[in-house]
């Protein structure tokens, strides 16, 4: 298994912009659900042996400040990766500390753009890694 996650990796996201942009290049798992639900789905994939490739608390945006999250995982599966298990666990704890807040619909597009920018940049640096 490549440490950098060779092949078509998995993108778990609730961001429609990211889902649309990457549907032809990544194995996109789109969830019409909350940010916490995305993190829980990522945790389940990590427990089943997929390695976390990007940090789930990306963007320095607190979990209750954005509704959208895109997380990249390896397609290949092995033994559960200890570092991935630890990181996703801490992220879920951090996300649970903040109460989700209702944000007016007119702000959602900005949040989708920020999430998309971060995951796109991560994929850019990933190219350098591979």
């Amino acid at each position, binding site marked *: 298994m490549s*440490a*950098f996650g060779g092949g078509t990796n998995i993108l778990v996201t609730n961001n429609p912009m990211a889902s649309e942009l990457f549907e032809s290049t990544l194995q996109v798992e789109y969830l019409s659900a909350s940010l916490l639900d995305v993190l829980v789905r990522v945790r389940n994939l990590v427990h089943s042996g997929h390695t*976390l*490739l*990007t*940090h*789930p*608390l*990306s*963007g*320095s*945006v*607190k979990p209750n*400040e954005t509704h959208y999250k895109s997380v990249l995982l390896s397609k290949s599966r092995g033994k559960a990766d200890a*570092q991935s298990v630890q*990181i996703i666990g*801490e*992220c879920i*704890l*951090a996300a649970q*500390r903040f109460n989700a*807040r*209702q*944000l*007016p619909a007119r*702000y959602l597009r*900005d*949040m989708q*753009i*920020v999430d998309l*920018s*971060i*995951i*796109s*940049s*991560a994929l*850019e*640096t*990933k190219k*350098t*890694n591979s």
Partner: protein
Amino acid sequence: MKLEVGYIRICDISFAEATEVKEGTLYVNAKELESMVLEDERIAAVCFDIARPGESVRITPVKDVIEPRAKVEGPGDIFPGVITKMSTVGMGKTHVLRGAAVVTVGKIVGFQEGIIDMSGLGAEYTPFSKTNNLVVNFTPKEGLSPHEYEAAARHAGLTIAYTLGKLSAALTPDETKVYEFPSMVEGIKKYPDLPRVGYVQMLQSQGLLHDTYVYGVDMKKSITTMLCPTETMDGAIISGNCVSACDKNTTYHHQNNPVIEDLFAEHGKTLNFAAMVITNENVYLADKERSSDWTAKLVDYLDLDGVIISQEGFGNPDTDLIMNCKKIEATGTRTVIITNEYAGRDGTSQSLADADPSADALVTAGNSNQVVTLPKLDRVIGTLEYTEKIAGGFAGNIVADGSITVELQAITGATNELGFNLMSAR
């Protein structure tokens, strides 16, 4: 390397026919600056305003703050590789319009920009309530993407600061400071009995709208490297960063890094300031491993006795911070980390998203979740449209009397992790 920095005190700022500095006042011809900015076809309109310390003014949403400086002697120029030709800076003589700042404002991604209050409670939390600010508000051309808008606003802000900074070149400084950074061997010979201390500065580099540039290089594409600390004083590091306002390092912070200032102040007395290492904070986990491996390797190679590590931002940079700390400690070099906390509004939650027993010496810049109510101010430069949207604001937080309730993270520089803060506790 030796850099002499001359400070010209600016006590007031005003619009005028001619752009000049006279008797401590910075006079600005806005028309001239406007035509310069509008040369960039990405910008549709630009509006200039002035905000002085103590005025009943709220500036929001703030993107960047920049100090006007000029290179007077020595190689290179201010903002090398970005506004001026690429050449190593940090030597010779530099002049500063101390007390003046260029503040760029604009809706880039509104919810990540900040607030500067020039008076009232909010003013106590931001250092830019004490500067005479030329506020520049950009309107992008229709259809411009947030990324292009950010790049255009960043470039225009730096150009304006560079132009105003030039005025200082011909003036006589009110105060002069000399920063001398010896080579490694010279330092060891000169201070054989002092502990050799280094500075590891972590730079925000998570991606578009969260970037930092060093000599024009996007830091997320760089491996961990070294800088002479005086280079930062000539604008070698600039901010292209739209993360939550309280803990992003503006360009002004990079130009006036207090960790570097304090290490220089103790250099030759209690310690030997021996090296500065810069590293990034990328989203990709393999990048985090590589960059922290390199900080530890460089620190070990330099055989330092101790390092100070400063973080930028919150959340996933906590992982970089702890990786840097753990790996450097494992080489036998002691560390002190500077961070801030997101400990919940009552301060009882865990402060960082990551932790390790080796991180046993920590300086905190405050709890960014702390809630403050800012009074109504007479004038708003920019717009309050985004105030409930910015990180730290909350929906419905503008009440009928005009006051706003926000977390400290909405205020520019409130819990800055370089320690560039107005309030402290011991």
